[in-house]
Structure formats: structure tokens, C-alpha cells
């Protein structure tokens, strides 16, 4: 059996695949831990060979009732992106694992059809044959003409990197939820409109029929009813029934549960800011147009556009005759564009390698913590844009252990103790497709021990790859986000406990997937959906596993590797503690086995039975919460990294309670903010444009700036004084005739410019008019045109006049006029002999040194005695001495470096004491220091 992860890379090769499947696995001792990608030119970032598409993309598919699963559109909308990848086939795959129990119709005991407000299901699917892995977000939209009024759709984020999908599961889920919510909102509106029209039609039909019946009655003098009359009467009755049904539907769609919202006061996605105004304005506003500033659900249905009712024929057209509505029609063009914007945004956000994404997320989370100093050198707009996610990322992924621990300290110990093993059984033990597991427990145990020993991402990766060795024709459900809604009285579905970490589950599955041929596997489920009120009837996404996993003893064995860990007891405790809280109710229905499992009443028992079927009844509210808490992280919760690398994991600003609330309302929160922002953006600008500035563009900018800066440093021997000017707040003028050259230099140097406030970067790329003292207040880096015209003389005159405030870099004659610099900081920042080759690397290098600088400035700014006397009698000189001593000795600053820190400290002070609001006059600080002319 193949157990070592490294062999997997080979097996990915298509030519090897079939062979390996048939052959017996290699003996244990042959699985040498080679560098897994050695044969690919040793580039760990090389594209996985098997994937047929070049980059990640988003696919929207529908399970059409007429033609079955079909792809609708891809984002980016470019045929090159999917390439030879078979979208139809993949649509079929992903649509075949819709976990939404989205049945609509006449539930038993109900007279009328009921709409279910179905929660979206979020699963991770893998198709190792295609080399495609996807986060799949299923949702249903309502369509009056569709069967059961529902149209199942799904949005899938498809990537060749399974690891990426798993790592970014939470983020993907949150982002796709927004998109889905947008679609569904539009759909509810459209559906309500449609219902209203239909009701009018019906009403009209009824009137017509009624009149006809009356006429017939009058005409009828025979004393008995003609068959015609009876038919009419029947028709009338059916129309009336239909009216009632449709009214009921309308009521249902209108009463889309706001109760849910009321419980979390901070979530008002669609509630109008000024309800009365909207109500009054709503009447004369045509809602069919897409000028909705703030989609207010409450008013969406009140407005009735003028509509001429039609007579409805008794027999409606056959299902296959009619043309189904397009997605666009289903959800109102406005919301559709919004959704597309959001999807484009997702595509941009998750572009790139996973390690890059992760690093970025971590650094962003870290930067977020430095709320005092981060405005100096960071792009605040970039930080703010991601604010809601960041905030939660910090607590979700990175400080998972701590929070869990904290939560545990606060709350009474949960009743249910489920170890990691039980997680596994919970996920995979649904006997959907009873395939005997050909796997010896020994081996499985071994793999897991590997997992637990290393507990690093690479291991996951390897394990995953290995896991999909031989599942040639298979789609694996790698994860599904399920709603933690065990508290509802969903008598219909059985529930399962679920692990907090998708990776853990996934990796285990990986070891067992070797035998699954042509099967669909649930690799993990990740519960995270917000709590749903009891009265909100919904069906919950559920976990499927067609591959039976039946092993009680394995569950026991599973714990042994953990005991073998070198780690001290405390780590173990952590692990245990985590295990305590990872209970969650999961609802589980099988695709092929619609029979629901009966909930078990007893929670305290180990929820494993002989047949491996785990049944957990709907859980009480608090426990569900705990489950949420424990399971919220998308990161490996007991990953060694999270403990070791990130010292800030304890986020003490939030008490555990509030943290938990914030966590549980994560989806809603982010939803609401995104809606507000998108609404705002479209408010001002009607044209549908990406609601967020492109993160990728700024990356490109960074890269370019870094590249140019590198070039600048290598080309100009006087780069140091120039950079010193920028860092010490002395405006640097780049003077040149050619705009492109000047702009390039300005871009290069802009990475060294500290921001004066949150809002603007004090960089002006190109100026042609004479400068003024106000410009030096506002801009710290200016590109200036040199002309020979009389106006140019003025420009130069102004430069010489204000020469004490500025340093002048002449791009044409390659000279620099600026104060002397003899410090040590800038040489480290801009070493012309640097080995750094890449622009982005250099950019990061600069950022790291600037961050160090920021921390020095922070320390300097906030040390009380450095600025103010200790006692009242203390003379000012001794304070000055102390200050200088601190700068020189404590911070180790030399010569002009002191001025840099002092300048940054002033900026910090200004930022802190500044009253919010406009009208703040920017300061210009300067020194009377002589300038020198540098030449190459």
C-alpha cells in the first residue's frame, strides 16, 4: 500500500495512473521521503501536471430540469482559462453532490406548498483525474415555472491546488456566501414580482371564469348542470385554490425570515437606513429598474409595477416546451451584476499561489494589529478593504488554540467528548454506498501518526496528494461547510459530529481513499453556518460519504500517535481541549439514501456505533455554539505553526464572549458590510464596476515599484541621501524632461515615503507648474517637469527659492542636491550590492525594515519620560538629554537616523492627537541644514 506522500507526485502523471491503480502498492520500506517534486525541475510551485486549465476560475452551473447539469458561465469569462477542461463534465460532477435538501412541494400535513429557505451548502470537491479541485457553493433559486419552484445552481471555485481550496475554505465560503446572498436577494425580489403577476393573472382568470359561470347559471334553466358548467366550476375552484396557494407563497417569500436578523442587532443587510423615506419614495420608483441604492427587502415587494393580467389557461404548457428563465432573469439584472462583480472580486482575491495568499493574509492580520503605526508605510485602503475578514481571520485561523482554550476556561466543560477519531467516523461513516474498506488499520494508523507528528502544511499537502492516488474516476467531496444548526427542530435529518478542522479529516480520508473507484467522497465537512432560529425551517447541508468507514477500533487507535508525540503534556492538553469542543451537529443525508437517520438522544456517549454510523441528535443551543466555536477555524487548529510563529495570537481586546459572537456572526457581518459598500459604490456610480479596487493591481504596483527601486539603488550611488530625504520628511523633487523617466523614478521612490495620514499617499507623480510651499506640505515626493520655456524658468526659480525645504533629484543630469546622510539605517534599506533580484522581494525587504523603523518610532513616541519631565522641576535640558540618549543608545540610531525616527514620531503623534474630520492643516517641518550636490 502506498502510504508515503511523496510517491503521489508520480502517480499524478496520467500514464502512470492506470498502472498504479492495478498494481499492488509498494512495500512500506520503499517509500523513501524524496523531495516530492524533484522530477519537475525542483520547482515546488510548478503547475500540477494533470490540470487542464492554466489558472483558477469560477464556474456557475445549473442543474437544469430540462437538460441536466450544465455550465452557465465562467469567471473570468475567457475560453482560454478553462482550456481543455471539460466544463460540462465537471458541472455534472459538482451538481451531482448537491446536499441541499431543497425539496419544495407539499410536505405532509401541510395543505399548501411550502417554500424552504434553504441554506447554501458548501462543499469541497476534488477530481483527481482532471486535477481539479473545487469549492462548490450550492444554492437554490426560486422560479415559479420550475419544478417545485426551485432551480438548483452552484458556483464553484475551481483550482488545481487542492491545498489552496482547503486553506482558503473559510474565506471562499464567506465570499461566495456574499455572492449567493446577493443572487438570492435578487431572486426573492424577482420571485415575488413573478408571484404578484401570477396572482393578478389568476385573479383576472377567476373573474372571467366567474362571469362565465354566472352567465351559464343564468342561461341554465334546465335545472341541472351541464358538464360544461361543472367543468367551469371545477376550473374556477382550481383557480381559487391556486390563488390561495400563490398568496401563501407570496406571503412566505415576503416573510423571508427577518427574525433571524433581529437576533443579531449588528446585521442589517437590507434594512433601509431611512425606512419612511424609502417607503414614500418607493411608490413612484420603478423597482424593475436597477437603481436601487439600498436593496430594501421590505419594500421590494410592495411596489407593483403596472401589469396587464393575462388569462391563464387551465392547462399550462409542458415542462419541456417552455423556456426556462436565465439566471439573469431569475435574479434581477441589478443583483446579477452585483453578483458578477463579487465573483470577479473573488477571482481576483484568490488568484495566485496559496502560500502567497496565506502569507498575505497573515501579514495583513499582523498589520491590522499595529493600528498605531501601520498608516505610515502601509496601504491603508488595502487594509481596510479586507477589514472584516482580517479581523476574523486573526481569531479564526491564527489563534485558534488560544481562543479555544479561553473559551473552555470560561464555559463549563461540554458534555460530549469526541476525539479526533470520532471526527472521522462522523464524517465518513454514512453508509451510503457500502464498499468494504480494504485497508489495514495498521497502515492507517501509521499515516495518521505521520500526520500528527509533523503537523505542517506540507504534510497535509502530501497526504492529500497521496489520498487521491487511485481514485481515478472519482470526485471527492473534500469538504463541506455545514450549518451548525442542530438546535433547530429539524426532525427530518440526522446529525453528525464534525471536526473543527477540515484538514484533519481530510488527511485521514486521504489515507483511505486509495480504493475508492468512481466514488464520491466527503473528505471533510466544516460546520460554520450561523445559528439559525428555531422557527426558521430550513434544511441543512449535510455530509455525504459514499465510502463507508466502519471502524470502532480505529477510532481508538487513532489516539495513540498523539500520545507518542514528543511534545510536552501541555500540547496534549491543548489537543484534548480542542477535541472537547468540536462537537457539532451535522445533518446527513445521502444522495442515494434518503432515509434519515434517527437522532440519538444521548449526547454523552461516544457517537459511534458498530456499523460506524454516527448519529448525533440535534443539540441544545449552547452546545451548538461550542461546536461553532471549536470548529470555526479553517486553519489546522493544532497546527504547530499557529502556536509557534504567531506571537500575537492572544487577541486580548476581545473577551471570549464577544469574540464568539463576532465569530458566529461572521458571515452575516461580512455580508452586511459588503452589501453596504457595494450599495454605496453603485449609488454614486451607476455603471456596474468592481466594487473593490483590485488587490492584484496593487500587487503589480508593488512589484513594479520594487523593481524600479532596485534599479534606482543600483544606478545611483547617491540613493542613500535621497531615501533619507524621503524618510525624514523632506520633499524630494524628481526633476526631468521626460515624463516616463520621472514617473518611473517617482514610483520607485514612493515605497520609501511615509504617509502623513490615513487618507493619501503624499506622492505626486507629475507636476508641470511651479511649486509652492503648500505643495511641500502636501507632497513628499514630486515628479517635476523641466522645460526650457519661460514657465520652466519659473519652475526652476521656485525650486531655488524653496531649496531649504526640498531635495532635488535631477533625472537628466543625474545629480542630487540634498542634505548629507551619514546614518546606518538607509544603507541596510538600500544596499546597492544587494543580492535581491526580484522587485517584489525587494519590496518586502523594504517593508520589513520600515516596519522595524516604525516600531522604533512607536517606542520613541510613546515613552512618556522621553518627551516630558519626570518631575515638574526637571529642566528641559535633561529631558532632551534623555531623549537623545534613548535614540542613540537604546534604539541604536546614528547621526541622521535620529531625524528619521523623530519625523516618524511626529507623524505618529499628529495622527494620534488629530481630531477626526476635515480642516486639519498639514504641517511642514523642516530643518535648517545645508545641502550638498551629489554627482555620479
Amino acid at each position, binding site marked *: 500500500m502506498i502510504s508515503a506522500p511523496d510517491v503521489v507526485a508520480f502517480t499524478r502523471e496520467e500514464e502512470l495512473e492506470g498502472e498504479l491503480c492495478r498494481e499492488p502498492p509498494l512495500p512500506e520500506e520503499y517509500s523513501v521521503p524524496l523531495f516530492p517534486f524533484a522530477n519537475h525541475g525542483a520547482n515546488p510551485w510548478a503547475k500540477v501536471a494533470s490540470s487542464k486549465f492554466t489558472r483558477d476560475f469560477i464556474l456557475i452551473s445549473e442543474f437544469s430540469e430540462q437538460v441536466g447539469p450544465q455550465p452557465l458561465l465562467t469567471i473570468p469569462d475567457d475560453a482560454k482559462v478553462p482550456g481543455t477542461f471539460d466544463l460540462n463534465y465537471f458541472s455534472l460532477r459538482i451538481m451531482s453532490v448537491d446536499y441541499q435538501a431543497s425539496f419544495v412541494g407539499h410536505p405532509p400535513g401541510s395543505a399548501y406548498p411550502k417554500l424552504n429557505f434553504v441554506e447554501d451548502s458548501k462543499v469541497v470537491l476534488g477530481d483527481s483525474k482532471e486535477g481539479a479541485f473545487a469549492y462548490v457553493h450550492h444554492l437554490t433559486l426560486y422560479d415559479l415555472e420550475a419544478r417545485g419552484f426551485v432551480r438548483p445552481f452552484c458556483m464553484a471555485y475551481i483550482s488545481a491546488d487542492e491545498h489552496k481550496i482547503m486553506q482558503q475554505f473559510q474565506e471562499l465560503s464567506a465570499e461566495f456566501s456574499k455572492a449567493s446572498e446577493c443572487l438570492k436577494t435578487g431572486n426573492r425580489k424577482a420571485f415575488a414580482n413573478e408571484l404578484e403577476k401570477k396572482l393578478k393573472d389568476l385573479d383576472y382568470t377567476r373573474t372571467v371564469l366567474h362571469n362565465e359561470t354566472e352567465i351559464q347559471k343564468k342561461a341554465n334553466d334546465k335545472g341541472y348542470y351541464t358538464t360544461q358548467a361543472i367543468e367551469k366550476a371545477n376550473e374556477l375552484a382550481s383557480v381559487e385554490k391556486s390563488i390561495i396557494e400563490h398568496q401563501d407563497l407570496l406571503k412566505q417569500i415576503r416573510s423571508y425570515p427577518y427574525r433571524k436578523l433581529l437576533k443579531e442587532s449588528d446585521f442589517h443587510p437590507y434594512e433601509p437606513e431611512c425606512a419612511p423615506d424609502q417607503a414614500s419614495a418607493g411608490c413612484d420608483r420603478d423597482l424593475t429598474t436597477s437603481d436601487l441604492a439600498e436593496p430594501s427587502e421590505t419594500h421590494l415587494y410592495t411596489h407593483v409595477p403596472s401589469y396587464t393580467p393575462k388569462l391563464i389557461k387551465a392547462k399550462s404548457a409542458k415542462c419541456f416546451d417552455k423556456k426556462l428563465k436565465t439566471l439573469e432573469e431569475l435574479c434581477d439584472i441589478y443583483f446579477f451584476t452585483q453578483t458578477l462583480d463579487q465573483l470577479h472580486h473573488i477571482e481576483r482575491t484568490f488568484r495566485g499561489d496559496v502560500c502567497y495568499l496565506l502569507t498575505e493574509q497573515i501579514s495583513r492580520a499582523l498589520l491590522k494589529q499595529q493600528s498605531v503605526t501601520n498608516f505610515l508605510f502601509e496601504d491603508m485602503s488595502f487594509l481596510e478593504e479586507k477589514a472584516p475578514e482580517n479581523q476574523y481571520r486573526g481569531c479564526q485561523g491564527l489563534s485558534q488554540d488560544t481562543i479555544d482554550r479561553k473559551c473552555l476556561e470560561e464555559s463549563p466543560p461540554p458534555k460530549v467528548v469526541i476525539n479526533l477519531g470520532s471526527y472521522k467516523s462522523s464524517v465518513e461513516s454514512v453508509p451510503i454506498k457500502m464498499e468494504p474498506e480494504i485497508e489495514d488499520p495498521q497502515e492507517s494508523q501509521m499515516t495518521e501518526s505521520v500526520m500528527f507528528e509533523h503537523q505542517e502544511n506540507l504534510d497535509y499537502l502530501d497526504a492529500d496528494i497521496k489520498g487521491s492516488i487511485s481514485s481515478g474516476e472519482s470526485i471527492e467531496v473534500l469538504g463541506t461547510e455545514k450549518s451548525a444548526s442542530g438546535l433547530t427542530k429539524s426532525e427530518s435529518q440526522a446529525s453528525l459530529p464534525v471536526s473543527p478542522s477540515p484538514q484533519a479529516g481530510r488527511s485521514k480520508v486521504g489515507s483511505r481513499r486509495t480504493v475508492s473507484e468512481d466514488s464520491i467522497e466527503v473528505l471533510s465537512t466544516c460546520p460554520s453556518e450561523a445559528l439559525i432560529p428555531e422557527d426558521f425551517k430550513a434544511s441543512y447541508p449535510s455530509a455525504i460519504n459514499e465510502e463507508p468507514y466502519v471502524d470502532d477500533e480505529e477510532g481508538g487507535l487513532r489516539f495513540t500517535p498523539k500520545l507518542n508525540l514528543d511534545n510536552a503534556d501541555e500540547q496534549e492538553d491543548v489537543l484534548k481541549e480542542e477535541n472537547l469542543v468540536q462537537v457539532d451537529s451535522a445533518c446527513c443525508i445521502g444522495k442515494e439514501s434518503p432515509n434519515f437517520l434517527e437522532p440519538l438522544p444521548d449526547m454523552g456517549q461516544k457517537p459511534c456505533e458498530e456499523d460506524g454510523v454516527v448519529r448525533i441528535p440535534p443539540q441544545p443551543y449552547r452546545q451548538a455554539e461550542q461546536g461553532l466555536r471549536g470548529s470555526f477555524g479553517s486553519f489546522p487548529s493544532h497546527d504547530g505553526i499557529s502556536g509557534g510563529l504567531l506571537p500575537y495570537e492572544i487577541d486580548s481586546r476581545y473577551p471570549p464572549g464577544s469574540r464568539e459572537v463576532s465569530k458566529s456572526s461572521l458571515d452575516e457581518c461580512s455580508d452586511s458590510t459588503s452589501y453596504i459598500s457595494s450599495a454605496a459604490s453603485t449609488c454614486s456610480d451607476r455603471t456596474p464596476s468592481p466594487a473593490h479596487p483590485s488587490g492584484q493591481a496593487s500587487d503589480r504596483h508593488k512589484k513594479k515599484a520594487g523593481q524600479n527601486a532596485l534599479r534606482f539603488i543600483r544606478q545611483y550611488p547617491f540613493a542613500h541621501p535621497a531615501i533619507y530625504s524621503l524618510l525624514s520628511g523632506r520633499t524630494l523633487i524628481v526633476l526631468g524632461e521626460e515624463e516616463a523617466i520621472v514617473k518611473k523614478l517617482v514610483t520607485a521612490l514612493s515605497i520609501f515615503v511615509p504617509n502623513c495620514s490615513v487618507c493619501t499617499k503624499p506622492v505626486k507623480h507629475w507636476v508641470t507648474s511651479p511649486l509652492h510651499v503648500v505643495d511641500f506640505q502636501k507632497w513628499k515626493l514630486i515628479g517635476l517637469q523641466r522645460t526650457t520655456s519661460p514657465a520652466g524658468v519659473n519652475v526652476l526659480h521656485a525650486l531655488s527659492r524653496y531649496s531649504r525645504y526640498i531635495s532635488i533629484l535631477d533625472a537628466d543630469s543625474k545629480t542630487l542636491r540634498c542634505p548629507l546622510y551619514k546614518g546606518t539605517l538607509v544603507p541596510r534599506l538600500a544596499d546597492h550590492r544587494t543580492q535581491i533580484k526580484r522587485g517584489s522581494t525587494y519590496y518586502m525587504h523594504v517593508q520589513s525594515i520600515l516596519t522595524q523603523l516604525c516600531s522604533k518610532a512607536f517606542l520613541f513616541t510613546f515613552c512618556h519620560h522621553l*518627551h516630558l519631565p519626570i518631575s515638574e522641576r526637571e529642566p528641559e535640558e535633561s529631558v532632551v538629554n534623555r531623549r537623545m540618549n534613548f535614540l542613540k543608545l537604546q534604539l541604536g540610531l546614528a547621526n541622521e537616523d535620529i531625524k528619521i525616527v523623530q519625523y516618524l514620531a511626529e507623524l505618529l503623534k499628529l495622527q494620534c*492627537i488629530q481630531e477626526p474630520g476635515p480642516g486639519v492643516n498639514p504641517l511642514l517641518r523642516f530643518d535648517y541644514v545645508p545641502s550638498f550636490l551629489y554627482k555620479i
Partner: protein
Amino acid sequence: KSSVQTIGEEQIQNPYTELLVLKGHQDIVRFLVQIDDFRFASAGDDGIIFLWNAQTGEKLFELHGHTHKITAIAPFSSSEASEEKKHLILSASADRTVIVWDCSTGRQVQKVSCFHSTVKCLTVLQSLDVWLSGGSDLCVWNRKLDLLCKTSHLTDAGISGLAELPKNCVAAAVGKELVIFRLIASNNESEDWNVLEVKRLVDHQDNILSLVSVNDSTFVTGSYVGELIVWDALDWTKQASECNFWDSSVHPDAQPEIKLTQSPNETSVQHLTSDEECVFAAVGKGIYVYNLQMKRVIACQRTAHDSSVLHIEQLPNRQLISCSEDGSVRIWELREKQQLPAEPVSTGFFNMWGFGRANKQANQAAKKMQENTPMYFLELLGDLIGHSSAVQMFLYFGELGLATCSADHLIILWKDGERESRLRSLTLFQKLAQNGDFQLKF
């Protein structure tokens, strides 16, 4: 080649290392007037008056009321201890109105628009609790803006300057003439005033541009052609006059190499200021210090600026600030000469002591040591460059800094960077102490 002394970029003694640009005016800013310790008003050709906080640079009020440019502005504070201190300002405009403004509310208190000509100067006589407006005639007003009395029509050009003299007298500069008026209260009724022309002094050859009262016994006038006359404030007799001290050929400390074409503009006495012993005169491009005791110029800087000096002010610490049409503000210090004037010193001695390398001014000063050379000289401490056009006026706020106004529509607040930094730290730590959970509003 400019003969103007320059200081270079290293200015150790220049305390102003921070500046704040106050924007608001849309035309030349000509007047700055101090209201109290931290507020000042600015006015100019756009007819708007702004009130500013000199510490923060905050714009307090924007006073609209005049339709034409403002020609004069004066603070008009109630000095009576009984009522609460109320800060008012008077402003006169080319629209022939005078408006009284309340500085605490920014409201217009009262408006007088019965003038026949533009009021060119305003003077408040605190002792009599009246104020005077000078245009083509001189009017006397009380606090309630009742016209108490007025003179007959004096001149079309208007009164260019007013100075308060002892014994209820006022000196008014009317063209070339200096007219002394006396205010006489009627015997029976205090509200009934009369203004009498007492004397007309015709000693000046040209228009009187500046008029300043030095002390109770002296006042000084300066004219367009550079006459400086010291008058006795009691009997209005000429005590001394210096009529061609700008003239290098006449004056002993003249530098033969500097041959200026004596255009009147370069010799006009633009502004005068004084302390008890000296009168400081801005004459053309230069600054002259005239000692009242010695009755001669004790120090001068012939070309202090590149172009006309428009305003000059003496600071408490023997420093002098001047601003000029060239857009710069310069800080000077009146220093006593180190060496005895009578001692003949060889140049070799100076070279030995490194004087040769000292700035040009010191060198020149050393050369010109003769018996009647001034014993003082003006040392340039620093210059403030920020305005792009003529600096019309400035206001010295002591510790708070210096406000300058200019034809480039801007007001610049110059501040001591060290002090500001310290103050910001103080504010910061106060703020930290106030709210323990210091959360920044990002």
C-alpha cells in the same frame, strides 16, 4: 550680483522650524491684527476678514460684510473692568463702511456707512473710549458708534496715518502735512466732543508714509523721500531730523562700493517702529536703527532685503523682524560691536582670529571702524521663506510663533518645531491618560 546679505541654509538661531499654511483669502492679505493672546484677524483685498487661532491654525470665523477691499482694521477691546472683556474689531473698507465685529461670535455688531470717502485709518483712543476714523476728514466716534464730531474736509487723498499724542491730541498725516488735532470735551456734557485743529506742521518734503508715537514726549514721522523727523509730542516742535541717512555719500559709514540709484522708492520710510531708546525704520530695502538719545543712526543694514521692506517689528530680545516685497521675512539681532571702535586693528589680527572667514557683514563692519561708526550692527539670524509674493505684514505671537500675510493670498504661521513637538507629546499623553483604552479611530 546681489548685495543682500545671505545667511545660507544653516540657521542655528532660527527657531522657526515648522510652518502651517492658512488658506482662506482669495486676494492679497494686507492686515493682521491681534485680538488676544491666541487669536488674530486677517484682512485684505477680498473684503473678507478671517479670525484664526494662532496656536492651531484653526480658522475660527469668516467675516463677510464688506464688498470692497479692506483698508484699515483695528482691535477695539473694551477695557473696562466692570463688564466682561469683549473683543471687537473695527474694519474699514473701500466700500465706505466701517463694521464692528464681535470676535467671540463672529457676528457683525454694527455697521456705519455714512462716510463720504474711504476710511484709510482707524485709531482707538482707549483713554477717551472713542475711536477715530480718518479719510478725507477725521471723525470721532464713541463705543456705541455715535458720531461725536468731525473735522471739515481736509484732503481728497485722505488721512494716511493717525497717532495718539498726549493731552487728547492726535497727529494726522495728511499728505505732506502733519496736522495736530485736539479733542475737547464740552464742559457740561461728556458726550459732546469737539475736534479742533491745533497745528499744521509742514516740514516734510513729501508725503508722510509712517507715523509712530514713541513715548509720551516723542513721536516720529517718516516720508516718501526718506526724511525722518522726531517731534516733541507736547509742543509739536521738531527735535531732530535725519533727512538723508540713506545717502552713502553723506553718511560716514557709507560703503563707497555701493552706489545705489536713489530712486525715491528706495528711500521711502515705509514703516517705523520704536522702543524707548530707538526708532527702527524700514527705509527702502534697508533697515536703520536711530537712537533717540544720540540722535543718530547707530546701526543699519542698507540692503536688508531684495526689495522694499514693508513692515518691521522689534521683538523683546533685541531682535528685529522685517518683511519685504521680495517675499521673505528676516530675523535680525541688534548686536553691540565686540571691539572698541577707536582701536586701529590690523587685518592680520583679524585673519589670525578667523575673522576673515566670518561673514561678509562682520568683515565689512570691521573695516569701517571709525569714530562715528555705529557701535551696533544688525546680525542676520535667519530668514523665513515661504511666501511666493510680497509679505505685507506679520504678527509676532511670542511663543506661539509668527504669522505672516502675503500678496500670494496666504497666511503662514511659523512655529518653533521643538516646542510644537513637545506640546504634541503633552497632548498625546494627556489623551492617553484620559481614555485608558486608547483606541485609534482607524
